[in-house]
C-alpha cells in the first residue's frame, strides 16, 4: 500500500521543518507559513485527502495553525502545522480558493485569533456579531 506521508515528505523534503508520527494514523508535519498553500494543494488535489478542519492556537511563540487532513482510505489524520511568529499583525495565505470547505474556518480563525487570511474571497464575521469591536480576539491568551 502506498504511503501518503512518504509522498508528501518526498515532494517537499526541502520544506519540511519537522515530521512527527504520534502513531501510525496520527502524523504531524511542520512547514513555514508561506509553503502551506502549495502543500495543501498537493495534499487535497493530488493525494485526494479530505480537509477536516484547521485549528488555531495562541502560543507564546506565535499563532500556531494546524490544517487537519484525513486520508480516509487508510484512516490517517495528517496535520500540517505552521507558526506565524508576528503576533501583532499575523498574516497567512488563504487556502479557501483551493479548498471550498476551508472558507468558514478561515473566517472563524480570523475573528477569534486575528489572523488575516490573504486572498480569502469573503473574509467577514462567522460566529461573532457583525459589530464586534475590532482588535478584540476571544481566543488570544493575552485578552
Amino acid at each position, binding site marked *: 500500500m502506498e504511503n501518503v506521508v512518504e509522498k508528501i515528505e518526498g515532494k517537499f523534503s526541502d520544506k519540511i521543518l519537522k515530521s512527527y508520527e504520534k502513531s501510525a494514523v496520527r502524523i504531524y508535519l511542520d512547514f513555514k507559513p508561506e509553503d502551506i498553500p502549495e502543500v495543501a494543494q498537493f495534499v487535497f488535489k493530488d493525494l485526494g485527502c479530505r480537509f477536516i478542519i484547521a485549528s488555531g492556537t495562541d502560543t507564546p511563540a506565535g499563532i500556531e495553525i494546524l490544517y487537519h487532513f484525513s486520508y480516509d482510505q487508510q484512516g490517517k*489524520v495528517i496535520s500540517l502545522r505552521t507558526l506565524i511568529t508576528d503576533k501583532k499583525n499575523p498574516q497567512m495565505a488563504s487556502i479557501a480558493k483551493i479548498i471550498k470547505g476551508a472558507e468558514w474556518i478561515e473566517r472563524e480563525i480570523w475573528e477569534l485569533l486575528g489572523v488575516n487570511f490573504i486572498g480569502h474571497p469573503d473574509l467577514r464575521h462567522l460566529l461573532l456579531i457583525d459589530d464586534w469591536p475590532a482588535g478584540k480576539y476571544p481566543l488570544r491568551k493575552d485578552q
Partner: protein
Amino acid sequence: MSHKVVIPIGPYHPLQEEPEFFRLYVEGEKVVDIDIVIGYMHRGIEELSEHKHFDQVAFLVERICGICSTSHPFAYVNAMEDLAQIKVPERALYIRTIIAEMERIHSHLLWLGLAGHFIGYNTVWMWAWRYREPVLDCFEIISGNRNHYAMMKVGGVRKDIKDEDIPTLQKALDELTPALDMFKGAVMDDPVIQARLKGVGILTKQQAIDWCVVGPTARASGVNIDVRKDDPYGAYDRVSWNVIIETAGDVFAKTVVRILEMQESVSIIRQCLDKMPKGEIDANIKDIPPGEGIGHVEAPRGECFHYVKSDGTNSPVRHKIRAPSYVNVASNKVAAVGQTISDATITLAAVDPCYCCTERVAVLERDSDRRLMNGWDLIKLSQEKTEKLRLSFRCRT
C-alpha cells in the same frame, strides 16, 4: 417579469439544536442564491473547555448537541486517549459502541419523522417518533437518562450494562427490526415519495469532495467515507457491518442511506451485546501528560472531530471541535441553488442540520420586507406539492 424576493430562514427556534439563518434569494419559484449565516448559538465552548478539568470537559462537550449528545464526548475521549496513549478496557469499548449506535438509530428516526412531516407524510412522522421512544427507554435503562447519557469518560465508561438488562435491550431490538423493514418498504417503494425526493437537492460527488462534506450527506453522493471503518475506534473493528453508499446525491439517496444505516446499527448492537467480554470498564486515569491528541467519530450526521492540546496541567490549553454540520450546512450553497421554493425546505433539512430551522421560514419582499409567507406556509407549499403528485399517481392507476 420576475419577482425577486429574499426568503429568510431562521435563526431562532426553541427546539433548534443549532440555530442558523439561511437567506434564500429567489426569482419567481427558483432559488438563485443562498447566504448562510451561523453563530447565533456561539457559546464559546472551546474557550470554556480551557477552564475545565479534563474530566469535566466530557460533560461540557456533551451539551454541544442534544440529539447526538454522545458523539462529542466520544470524540473527545478518543482525542484524550490518543494524547495520553491510554489503553481502554475491552468491555468499555463495546459499551461505547452500543451507546453510539443506539444514538444513531434515535437520531435517524427523528430525522426521518421530520422529513416525512415536511413533505406531507405525517404518518411517517408519527410512526418514526413512536419507534424512537423505545430506543430512548433503552438509554434510560442503561444510563438513567433519555438524553445526555454521560457514559463517556477518559479511559472508559461511567456505567456498566447490567447482565439482567441485556434481555430487555435485545427484546427492544427485536421489536425495532420489523419497524425498520416497514420504513424501508414505506419509503423506498412509495412512488409518490420517489417522485417527490428523487432529483431534488442534488449534491454531486465532486461537489461533496470540494465542500469536504461528511456522513450520510457524503455517502449519499457516492463518497465512500465512514470513520467507523476508515479509522476504527470503539469496537467497530470487532464486529461485521457494511458502509451504506448511494450515488444519486439527492434527498432520496440521503433518506435511503439513513434508513439502511439504522438496520446496520441494530446488527452492530446485537453483535456487541453477544460478544461483550466481562471485566473492568475504566482504566482509572489520574494524570494527563503534555502533548496533543486527535479523536474523530462517526456521529449520526457525519465525522465529529476533536483536537486537544495539553501542557501537563489538568485543563486543555486548546480544544478544537468540528461538528459535522459545520461542513454539511455549508454545502447547501450548492445543493439548494436551482431548486424551487417548495423543495428548499426538504433540501435544507436533508443534511439533517437542525430540522426546526425550516419552521422559521418566511418569504419577504426584498424592498419592503413585507411578509408574504411564513414558515408554515412554506411547509404547506411543500406538502401541497406531494399531494398533487399523489393525485396524479392516483389518476394514472
